[in-house]
């Protein structure tokens, strides 16, 4: 790529040889492209600045020890929402990882070239960009209505449905990068297919697969829409069986940010800062993990 940088539209040409209109068009394009990029950076900067200014004001150790306060009462923290988010995301990723890993393995190894794999790959791409609120409606019909109550389990399953296609896709892509000769070498040693997959191809693609899981984690950690009708929210510590509303950061932020109480708004900002920083950190980590993979 670096070689391309040296290629420039011959600046040595005398300006007279380029008609004015061409030069104007060229300048305009360069300026417009630069402006578009600056605009993107300014928006990101503005979002981070807003979060840091508003969020830091409400930051205190109490955030991590106190549960969310009831309407109109003073003080409080977001400890229950933090714990709830950890539990929900944990359930989501624990359910999604084995399913996504195995499905991705099917697409890249067993089903390679088959019609069924083609269809599933297609539908997985659809599921990957399906509106997350529809997944919320699905899990509501599947779990909340029959069980008669909102629950953390339903929230976890909704998040798992969002995380799975991400893991399927990255796993498949990474397994495809593993050279076929490695598999052939494994099979030639007399190892069954499952052993070859587990100890040769998975191992060769491990960094990429882990990246996929981290990306899926970053994706579901901030998801709000599918939790609205499944885990809902709760202003106290949730019960240990995760039945009833389970407090979680995204829905807490949604409800508190639009509330009339100043201390609720303050908590929403603190939660927003916490969750955004966590997700940005996860995304950066995912990119660092993938580096040795692409360099190979």
């Amino acid at each position, binding site marked *: *790529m*670096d070689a*391309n940088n040296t*290629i420039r*539209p011959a600046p040595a040409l005398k300006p007279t040889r380029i008609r004015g209109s*061409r030069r104007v068009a060229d300048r305009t*394009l*360069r300026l417009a*492209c630069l402006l*578009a*990029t600056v*605009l*993107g*950076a300014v928006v*990101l900067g503005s*979002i981070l600045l*807003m*979060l840091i200014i508003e969020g830091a004001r409400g930051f205190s150790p109490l955030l991590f020890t106190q549960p969310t306060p009831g309407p109109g009462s003073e003080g409080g923290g977001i400890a229950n929402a933090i714990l709830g988010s950890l539990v929900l995301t944990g359930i989501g990723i624990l359910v999604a990882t084995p399913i996504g890993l*195995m*499905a991705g393995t099917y697409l890249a190894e067993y089903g390679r*070239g*088959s019609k*069924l794999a083609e269809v*599933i790959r297609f539908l997985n791409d*659809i*599921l990957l*960009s*399906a*509106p997350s*609120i*529809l*997944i919320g*409606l*699905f899990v*509501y*019909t*599947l779990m909340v209505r029959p069980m008669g109550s909102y629950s953390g389990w339903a929230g976890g399953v909704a998040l798992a*449905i969002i995380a799975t296609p991400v893991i399927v896709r990255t796993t498949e892509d990474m397994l495809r990068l593993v050279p076929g000769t490695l598999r052939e070498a494994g*099979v030639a040693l*007399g*190892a*069954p*297919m*499952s*052993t070859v997959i*587990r100890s040769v191809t998975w191992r060769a693609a491990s960094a990429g697969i882990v990246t996929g899981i981290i990306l899926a984690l970053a994706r579901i950690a*901030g*998801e*709000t*829409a599918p939790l*609205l*009708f499944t885990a809902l929210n709760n202003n106290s510590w949730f019960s240990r069986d995760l039945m009833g509303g389970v407090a979680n950061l*995204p829905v807490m932020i*949604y409800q508190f*940010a639009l509330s009339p109480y100043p201390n609720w708004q303050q908590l*929403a900002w603190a939660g*927003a800062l916490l969750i955004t920083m966590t*997700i940005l950190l996860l*995304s*950066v980590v995912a990119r660092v993990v993938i580096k040795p993979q692409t360099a190979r």
Partner: protein
Amino acid sequence: MTALTEQIALTRSGTSTRSRKGPSKGLDALFRAASYGSALLVLVVLAGILGSILYGGWPAFREFGFGFLTSSAWNIGTEQYGALVAVTGTLASALLALVIGVPISLGIAIYLTQLCPGWARKPVGMTIELLAAVPSIIYGMWGLFIFAPFFARFVQMPVSNVVEGLPIVGTLLYARVPSGVGVLTAGIILAIMIVPFVASIARDMLDQIPTILRESAYGIGCTTWEVVRHVLLPQASVSIIGAIMLGLGRALGETMAVTFVVGNANRLSASVFDPGSTIASRIANEFNEADGLQLNSLMALGCILFAITFVVLIIARFLTRRVKVA
């Protein structure tokens, strides 16, 4: 299918040699079955999503028939529901997002692949990618608390004052209550949200174009604009349209950010400054308090959203794949 049977043959011949340490035939088959089952689960889940919202929305479709699509009513007291306002709001905000977002995305992609100095390429690319990682609820808060007041003061009020009383633009761009929230605000926030996606796909596509094509164009004295316009964009056009379709799919189904800034009014207005609502924002707002026919109508709205996004995503998928194969 032939590939499948080959794989099975490979597996069989592998295990039929004298048993070594390692999984038995049973475990090998189990592993294969688990992998097959997980893949089928993807299919089942997608069918489940469609089935559940169809099942939930069916009573509303039966009650209102085709009129559900053309009615703009949404009256909880008289139990009259129609999809027109929400569908219009969804399409309008998503199209506005494309109109605003696509030129910016292409600009960023062109800057990153053609103009950016080598040392800045990584950090700038990373910044744009991080924009994609910010959760949608944060965009909603930014839109409502930072962007909307700014937008009301510096865009809505001056523009409304100028266009007041004029034909066409006077209705299209007139804000009755310049609060900053509305369909256009939703479109702008959605544009910001789809930019990183469209830009990163477009960047990958531009990167895939053989360098020799660009070099040849520069070699005959083309300016950067001419190279982009006549060489790069035609080469990547199909996949860029695919990327735009992917962005459209996201914009149509985006929920939280839109719920914050769209205004959530059930009113059909000709002005893009007026509050409206989208399918997703209406479901998010009302679902938890809804029951009976209202719940069914919300589910029916979900069906319409599913149908629209499904079509858009299928088009996107075909366009982006066609290039990959070629």
